[in-house]
């Protein structure tokens, strides 16, 4: 007879491991944000989000909208300042995760691998330029006023229509 209890227990163990890894990945991004916030007086915040696929005619197909995951950066002091930095994907069990730029595809096999890859991402000159522009955005007098993400000049990373 097939031992379903054994399979059930294996599933629970996998779920537990997967949860542990996802928490670990969250902790890496929390550490990253803490360090960036300290270094920029709270002007840079990194997130992982689902964005609407605007390539080709995809965005116009209202019934078959496609989304993808991305690493984004925003200046929390300026509304609508979010910019896409890289595409992001993550295995159901946590690892590997993958960070994709036009010029690089980085698979992260574990926590240290993710840290190294994020380090590489932040060292990229185009990413550096985007973050610098976000950091230098003029802060509106009242936080929360519609402001000037548009003052970031249009470039390759400028397609971050967030869908939450």
């Amino acid at each position, binding site marked *: 007879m097939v031992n379903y209890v054994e399979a059930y227990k294996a599933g629970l163990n996998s779920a537990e491991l997967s949860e542990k890894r996802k928490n670990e990945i969250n902790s890496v991004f929390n550490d990253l944000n803490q360090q960036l916030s300290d270094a920029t007086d709270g002007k840079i915040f990194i997130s992982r989000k689902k964005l609407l696929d605007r390539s080709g005619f995809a965005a116009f197909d209202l019934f078959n909208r496609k989304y993808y995951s991305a690493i984004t950066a925003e200046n929390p002091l300026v509304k609508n300042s979010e910019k896409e930095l890289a595409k992001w994907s993550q295995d159901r069990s946590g690892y*590997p995760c993958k960070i994709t730029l036009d*010029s*690089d*595809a*980085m698979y*992260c*096999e574990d926590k240290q*691998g993710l840290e*190294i890859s994020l380090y590489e991402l932040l060292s990229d000159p185009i990413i550096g330029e985007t973050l610098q522009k976000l950091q230098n955005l003029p802060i509106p007098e009242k936080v929360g006023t519609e402001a000037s993400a548009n003052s970031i000049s249009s470039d390759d990373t400028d397609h971050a229509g967030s869908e939450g």
Partner: protein
Amino acid sequence: MRLSFVWWNTSLSPAGKARATNAQRQVVCAMVDIILNQMRVDFLALGETTEQDVKEIEQTCKLTEFDVERGFAKAGRSHFDTCFLYRSNKLSLTGSQAITAAKGNRMLKIAQKATFEILGHGKPLHVFISHWPSRLWCHENSSDRNLLGIRLRDAVEDVIAESGKLANVILLGDYNDEPFDASLEKQLMATRDRVLAKERPHLLYNPFWQHLSLPKSHSTYGTDDDNGGTYFHSIGEITRWRTFDQIIFSFAFLGNSEWHLNEQLTGILDVEGYKAMVINANEIFDHFPVLGVIEKVESHG
């Protein structure tokens, strides 16, 4: 129309450290000249090179028909050491990407992906150029070698997801693994079985299974002057020959699209005079170039 691809590990600057004498650098320039200007190869990827090596090759060889892509992207504390040259009236480079896998404090260099448009023929061609770590730094039984194959397979899957099962994919390089090693056969799924590869779109075909030993049978009066592989190490205890350098083809090239593999022309490139340097332990050269050829078949419909 025919397109030819060559991979050659030049042995010039392993791990980015220059070690060649002027005479040895001249040998490399002469080889590049023969491959591109005399044999009229359309794509040449070179391994163990640096920015300075490429500059010298450009200055020394007459490469007016070629564009050069320096692929020396950073990978953790190390760099990719591959570059490639391509005939600009046949191929147009539309993108290139460095593919890495970070595990612990190591950054494994999986491949550099170059995407071309074959001019006048629309459909993209994806070329993956790899120089996997030496067995000195990554043991032949290390799980990392399996990981190299798994992630290269993932990168191929990404292309297939985007371009469909008839995606034009060519993989070439010095894998420091042989066709029968798990990284290439099991993880990458590069098979010896051409008939099966023609039927199963997910399989890749590796013609270099045919280049694992001397091509001619032993005979009493025959000579053994052919190559027994693509890499020669004179101190090998069981064998001095390895087939580390390979070119691997996707399903599309096995009679399933207008571009076909020409397997007769595909193999180890034996440039006159070069073998003497490869088997000479005092020389730096230890790899032969390998050649892969595809041809466009005119439809008779």
